[in-house]
């Protein structure tokens, strides 16, 4: 149950009511005061004071002063009249209730309206600020544009001026030179002929008769001759040989696939270093026969001469020494093809392709050859589809090779020819 504050005192004038409410030690803040047109409430738990006013007041302009343990209300009456009492005397409970609720509602509405109004004003302020900044920026931009325009015009004018000067200068010079030429041409011609008839007069003579028109812009044959005497003779022809910065891959930085190429190089270097040295039969071989490169060359030579078995032996030995060199398998595959050892040819080509990863432009040739050889072997075994696959792979690497293209076509025809019958 709230404690009602009843010890209030009030006095009035025609237009205002002054209400003084002692607080009995409780502290009041504006939040504790609730006032509407006809209803006044002060609620400081557990204290409560409420008054249904005799007549409506102007609650927006009325004030409440909190201080000295006291709230002092100054309520401005809506209608100037003397009140009989502060509150409605004959107010019954229901009316009171109704008034109370009404008051609360009204207060709420008012609060809403106020917030709305605030929002609107805020927005307007923002808009105004934005427009102001836009105007400022516009002005700045315009200023810069104007500066640039002025520069442009100034510069264009200077250019015109300079151009006209040039034109005038040229005209004057050409007129001058023409006149002088006319004057000098006759006597000079004679003098030139004289010179030719006599033996070579020292240069001083020549320089004295140099026509003045060299400083002008038109030329005469005389001035050119004399000028040529001052120029050195054409240089003695020579050639300078140049070397370009070596790169393993002949493409510029921007074109190279550096990572893959590095990998391939690394692999190659590794492969060359491997020597399977734990074969006891190698003891009785000559030094050079232990070198896989030398053996490969020997194999190549024997292949060229037609000694396919010998070549295979050479490659076999090389492989035993170093089984990581793709070219050994590649070349051995070629030998097997010639010897019609088709399965072995396929094996070797496959091994070669395995070792030729990652695919880079450097090992393109080798890969093409491997695919072609394996394709050929497949076809000779009448496995045409597999063969075609290899030919197409080869064509992908080297699309410009006509021979591969033709062979691929032939295989396609063969497949189509055998299809209906099988």
């Amino acid at each position, binding site marked *: 149950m709230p404690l009602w504050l009843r010890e209030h005192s009030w006095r009035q004038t025609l237009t205002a009511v002054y209400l003084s409410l002692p607080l009995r030690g409780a502290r009041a803040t504006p939040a504790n005061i609730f006032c509407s047109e006809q209803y006044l409430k002060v609620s400081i738990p557990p204290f409560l004071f409420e008054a249904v006013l005799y007549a409506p007041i102007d609650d927006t302009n009325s004030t409440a002063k909190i201080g000295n343990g006291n709230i002092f209300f100054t309520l401005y009456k809506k209608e100037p009249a003397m009140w009989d009492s502060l509150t409605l005397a004959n107010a019954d409970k229901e009316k009171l209730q109704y008034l109370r609720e009404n008051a609360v509602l009204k207060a709420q509405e008012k609060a809403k309206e106020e917030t709305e109004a605030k929002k609107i004003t805020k927005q307007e302020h923002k808009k105004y600020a934005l427009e102001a900044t836009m105007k400022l920026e516009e002005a700045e931009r315009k200023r*810069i544009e104007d500066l640039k325009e002025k520069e*442009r015009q100034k510069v*264009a004018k200077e250019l015109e001026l300079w151009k006209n000067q040039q034109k005038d200068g040229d005209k004057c010079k050409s007129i001058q030179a023409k006149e002088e030429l006319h004057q000098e041409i006759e006597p000079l011609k004679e003098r030139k002929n004289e010179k030719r008839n006599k033996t070579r007069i020292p240069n001083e003579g020549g320089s004295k008769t140099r026509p003045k028109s060299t400083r002008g812009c038109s030329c005469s044959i005389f001035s050119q001759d004399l000028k040529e005497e001052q120029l*050195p*003779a*054409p240089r003695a022809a020579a050639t*300078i040989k*140049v070397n370009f910065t070596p790169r393993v891959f002949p493409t510029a*930085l921007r074109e190279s696939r550096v990572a893959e190429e590095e990998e391939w190089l690394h692999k190659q270097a590794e492969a060359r270093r491997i020597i399977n040295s734990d074969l006891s039969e190698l003891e009785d071989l000559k030094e050079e026969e232990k070198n896989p490169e030398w053996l490969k060359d020997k194999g190549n030579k024997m292949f060229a001469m037609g000694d396919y078995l010998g070549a295979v032996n050479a490659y076999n030995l090389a492989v035993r020494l170093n089984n990581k060199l793709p070219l050994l398998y590649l070349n051995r595959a070629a030998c097997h093809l010639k010897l019609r050892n088709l399965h072995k040819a396929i094996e070797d080509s496959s091994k070669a392709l395995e070792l030729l990863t990652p695919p880079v432009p450097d090992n393109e040739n080798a890969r093409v050859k491997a695919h072609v050889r394996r394709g050929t072997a497949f076809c000779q075994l009448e496995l045409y589809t597999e063969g075609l696959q290899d030919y197409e792979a080869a064509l992908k690497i080297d699309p410009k090779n006509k021979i591969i293209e033709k062979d691929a076509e032939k295989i396609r025809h063969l497949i189509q020819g055998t299809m209906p019958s099988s």
Partner: protein
Amino acid sequence: LGPERPERPQVVSHVQQALSYTVFDCKWVPRSARLLCLGSAARGTGVVQLYELHGARLELLREIEKPKPIKCGTFGATSLQQRYLATGDFDGNLNIWNLEAPEIPVYSVKGHKEIINSIDGVGGLGIGEGAPEIVTGSRDGTVKVWDPRQNDTPVANMEPVQGESKRDCWTVAFGNAYNQEERVVCAGYDNGDIKLFDLRTMSLRWETNIKNGVCSVEFDRKDINMNKLVATSLEGKFHVFDMRTQHPTKGFAFVSEKAQKSTIWQVRHLPQNRDIFMTSGGSGSLHLWKYEYPAQRSKKDLEGSKMGVAGSLSLLQNVTLSTQPISSLDWSPDKMGLCVCGAYDQTVRVLIVTKLNKI
């Protein structure tokens, strides 16, 4: 310093001219307000157009068609009176034309087996001393020096050693022509090689590799003791070499800058101030740079040999004019700040760079 501050040089676009062909090179005609555009028409023929600057527009004075597309041209080896144009075309032919009578070339030679990528001339225009010479660099990997008085054979030929796989030569430049005997040719290749050939001793004087293909090389002045060399490359990098001091092993000192994300196609020094140069890029932008010399240009290394000290670069201004690469650039030798650039969007632009005299 923001780019709009009035003290900085501004790049003002004065005239823009749309062309109906691809322009590969544009050059000012010396002592005039005329400029030349060289390129390739859609039907595969070469085009030379002569324009004159009239107020805010370019007036076409003459159009010449040639059987092969033209890649590059120079006035460097011609006298001021004659003003003959030397051109290199897609077929490897070097021709010198009298623009008043362009039907028959004054000099013609099939100098290379493949396209001539770059050409330079020295000894003409009243600049420098010595014989007028033209150097051409081609995709066939050779760099050849020609004297217009000698037909058919070059006076110097820098070619790959027998059996060496060739690299495209993308750019050439003359330098060090301060008296009648001295000349050097600098050549840049597509694998990043830069080679300096001395024509007096007919030998290779210096070489280096800057990893990315070299698009353009230029000395700051052709007719003085070689001072600075700028080499631009792919991927937005360029190097400025100090050419006054050559160290026996380390070569020339350099400072490098990575400016634009794309290829830097051209570098051109301002004829009136050799420490200012402009680079043009694949993103259609132009950058104006100034080189500042260090306090001491050379110092002694641990063994006591002299080595150069590179200076520093500052960007004065940059501007983006186009979405396509600006492949050619030329400053007017007569009016400071006037320059012409040609881009692959088939437009040639005349620009004026202001306040260069205040730098």
